[in-house]
């Protein structure tokens, strides 16, 4: 036990080590606080929008909630608010929530022309990326590990203590393990302490919190293993080892991800979003120039229940108008599926990259657990789609049975309830990370062993 105590003392006596650890604790706490502030801000925005929406709805009710009110105009002028509040763990990994809208109003019109609307966003603020726990873990924690580990062996050699250390029979063998484990626990503590506090504050589910903590533990273990490997294998100076490790950091957290993104975005182009909105517009507007019966024919395929309602004879009828919009959406359903497939494919390839790249694995894991990635946004879009279906089911009886739409009917309107979390635990990413960690740690342990063996006979 006294050996542990001595190592703790030694570690904190070095200004760099103590400073790096304290800095990590501080930055991690700051990131958790910033993340909590950002999610609180998003909830505030949702509250504000809900208030604005109530105001707007009240004026619509006043205008269209007449005794002989028409469901067509009511549906045209009523916007329905959908919201996607942040998950309890979003504070740790804000992901795409800064660029994807989390409030969106939809009407009974064609959904595909409403679904991709962007929120007001200052692009310059989004450009550098969020400052959250994920950022601290992925970018900064490795640097702290490097600062703590780069001269673990070479520092002893440069101080002339190395031979003595490895020749010690009892404590000597365990010295590297002890020092590594000590650094590992301290780094992990500095990282996870604030994170766990944040998770408690935001009442995060235990399972996902544990998954993030596990991912962090594995990621830190990977970097510790890598640093130990370089420290043990590197025969040259501390500075050279430090440089080599910084090189690894640049390659693994800046270079390869940027390169991979370039490759993925080129291999899986997604202009289809524009294609499908252009196609949908053509479908909807063509309906004005073709016989109404053609539009209804297509509409009745999915809605046989309205087949026997009276035909539209005049120039305009609301039920024809909304049928035209639904047919427009149906006409591009294949394109929509294709668009989502290509977006999902980008995510899938990023997750696969995690088998090789710990930073990508952790990025995927954290954001999946926090439900703040592209897949989460797609889940929100699908939920809006379901809600839009409910809106149709609600309005169509009024339109096709020509029932008046009155004040009380506004009360019956479907309300959007936020979707259940789509968070999941990507087990394959976790396994991939685990394999990487085992490999690196194995190599590091071997390197440390050979270090002792090569130095020991010399000393004796």
């Amino acid at each position, binding site marked *: 036990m006294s050996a542990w105590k001595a190592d703790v003392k030694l570690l904190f006596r070095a200004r760099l080590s103590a400073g790096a650890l304290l800095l990590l604790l501080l930055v991690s706490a700051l990131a958790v606080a910033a993340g909590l502030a950002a999610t609180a801000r998003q909830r505030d925005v949702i509250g504000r929008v809900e208030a604005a929406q109530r105001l707007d709805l009240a004026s619509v009710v006043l205008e269209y909630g007449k005794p002989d009110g028409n469901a067509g105009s009511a549906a045209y002028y009523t916007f329905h608010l959908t919201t996607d509040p942040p998950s309890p763990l979003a504070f740790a990994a804000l992901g795409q929530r800064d660029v994807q809208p989390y409030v969106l*109003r939809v009407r009974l019109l064609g959904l595909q022309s409403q679904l991709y609307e*962007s929120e007001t966003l200052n692009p310059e603020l989004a450009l550098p990326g969020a400052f959250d726990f994920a950022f601290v873990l992925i970018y900064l924690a490795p640097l702290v590990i490097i600062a703590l580990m780069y001269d673990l062996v070479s520092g002893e050699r440069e101080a002339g203590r190395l031979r003595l250390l490895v020749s010690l029979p009892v404590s000597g063998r365990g010295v590297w393990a002890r020092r590594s484990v000590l650094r590992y626990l301290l780094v992990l503590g500095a990282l996870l302490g604030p994170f766990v506090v944040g998770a408690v504050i935001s009442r995060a589910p235990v399972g996902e919190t544990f998954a993030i903590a596990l991912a962090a533990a594995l990621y830190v273990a990977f970097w510790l293993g890598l640093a130990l490997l370089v420290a043990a294998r590197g025969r040259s100076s501390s500075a050279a080892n430090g440089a080599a490790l910084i090189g690894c950091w640049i390659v693994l957290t800046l270079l390869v991800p940027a390169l991979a*993104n370039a490759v993925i975005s080129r291999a899986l182009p997604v202009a289809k979003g524009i294609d499908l909105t252009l196609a949908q517009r053509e479908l909807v507007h063509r309906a004005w120039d073709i016989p109404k019966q053609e539009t209804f024919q297509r509409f009745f395929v999915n809605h046989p229940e309205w087949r026997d309602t009276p035909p539209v004879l005049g120039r305009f009828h609301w039920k024809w108008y909304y049928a035209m919009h639904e047919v427009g959406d149906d006409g591009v359903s294949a394109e929509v599926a294709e668009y989502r497939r290509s977006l999902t494919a980008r995510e899938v390839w990023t997750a696969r990259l995690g088998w090789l790249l710990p930073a990508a694995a952790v990025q995927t894991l954290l954001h999946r657990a926090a439900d703040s990635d592209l897949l989460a946004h797609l889940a929100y879009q699908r939920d809006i789609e379901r809600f839009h279906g409910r809106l149709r089911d609600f309005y169509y009886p009024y339109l096709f049975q020509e029932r008046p739409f009155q004040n009380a009917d506004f009360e019956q309107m479907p309300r959007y309830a936020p979707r259940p979390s789509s968070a999941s635990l990507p087990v394959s990413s976790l396994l991939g990370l685990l394999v990487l960690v085992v490999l690196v740690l194995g190599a590091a342990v071997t390197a440390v062993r050979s270090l002792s063996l090569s130095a020991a006979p010399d000393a004796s």
Partner: protein
Amino acid sequence: MSSRKVKVLRVAAEEWRALLRNRVAMIASLTLVALTVTSAVLGLQQRNATEAARARYQATSDEAFDAQPDRHPHRMVHYGQFVFRPLSALAFFDPGVDGFTGTTVFLEGHRQNSANFSEARQSSLLLRFGQLTPAFVLQTLAPLLIVFLAFGAVAREREQGTLRLLLAQGLRPSELAAGKLLAHVGVVALVAAPALVVLAVATLADWVPPLPSALMLSGYLVYLFIWAAAALLVSLLVRRAQDALILLVALWMGGVILVPRLLPELALARIPTPTRIETDVAVHHELKQIGDSHNPDDPYFASFKAKTLARYGVDKVEELPVQWAGLVGMEGERLTSELFDRHARAAFDREAEQNRLVRQFGSLSPLIALRQLSMSLASTDTESHQDFLEQVERHRYRFVQALNLLQVEKIPNQNAGEDPRIAAEHWKTLPGFTYQAPDMLHLAGERIRSNLVVLFCWLAALLAGCGWAARRLGEVAR
């Protein structure tokens, strides 16, 4: 040549020899050079592909518009137009905020839509690790390489005891510092050389405008000199080479990785942004305050009616020679657009305020000043996106009012029939959208100047610091 110059050159040559012997340094430098070239080639290819795709979409959408059949003009107001933002030539070097702003806007009457389908919304989170562009390589990676090459310039000599020896042999500290600085200025020139070649070739081939590329290159050169001077300064001050390295890497981490992410958080917390929905509701509400065109007793539209009748010298709307509904539509569009403009201006002002907060810290992290400069010169900054949105809105107004005017003039005011339409050839006479790329030196002249000034101040301060540290070195060594 004076002996002083010879000595400085000797010191520089020695430093170069030491650097050339360092295999790791050579590999890192060559990698960076290769990265700059690769990213430039990839960037150029990507830019051209994106630009071609957007031009193609614009052409298809314009053709589809012209090919619409006979219709009521108001149907065409709702059919609307799609416009795509063309990419500037220098976007291959620094795509700036382009990945985060939408690239296409749908234009229609009564509504102002957002720019949609940004790359960031359609990408996995890998995009947030940074895009591999020459700007990314030079802004983020190159400073670290320079730090690694220069941190030991003086500190190592001191550590190895050669410093005392050199000074004892009569080399003045200022000469030593000047020599080391010269050596690393050379390093910076080499690091920036691929970018120079790329920009020069692009300029000569007439792909990019010469003055912005020259300014861009000088901005990056000054930025890299700042890092070289900072490395030398720390190397002059710190006792051990290792400490110099740690300090410099920490500075890089803070200035390049941490501060740029922290500041937006601050700006967003300080200056909240209203959502599009709140704006829409507010516009709608304000519009109602002005008047209701459907209400015959509405004071605003009653006076509009009186004025119109007086202008045409008739007593009833039925007697108007032009279509009354069209006139009301035009007036309505004018009113909504005024409100859109006001809210858009308020939003731009708020963005400007947020960005000002971040940019003020250009004095804290030269990266912020450089990034701003680079984006402005490449026409990929927030302001040029706003300029695009403003042009789009002006075009939307012209386009919608042109259609409304067709309704006023071509649709009979009385007995127009069940389904009045006008001939399809009218659609071809409507203005298409051509984006007038702004002259960035004009639009962003003030920002470009001030960011250059910030960068030069940084460099001057650091060089002065080096001079002071060199004098101090002489005192310490004595």
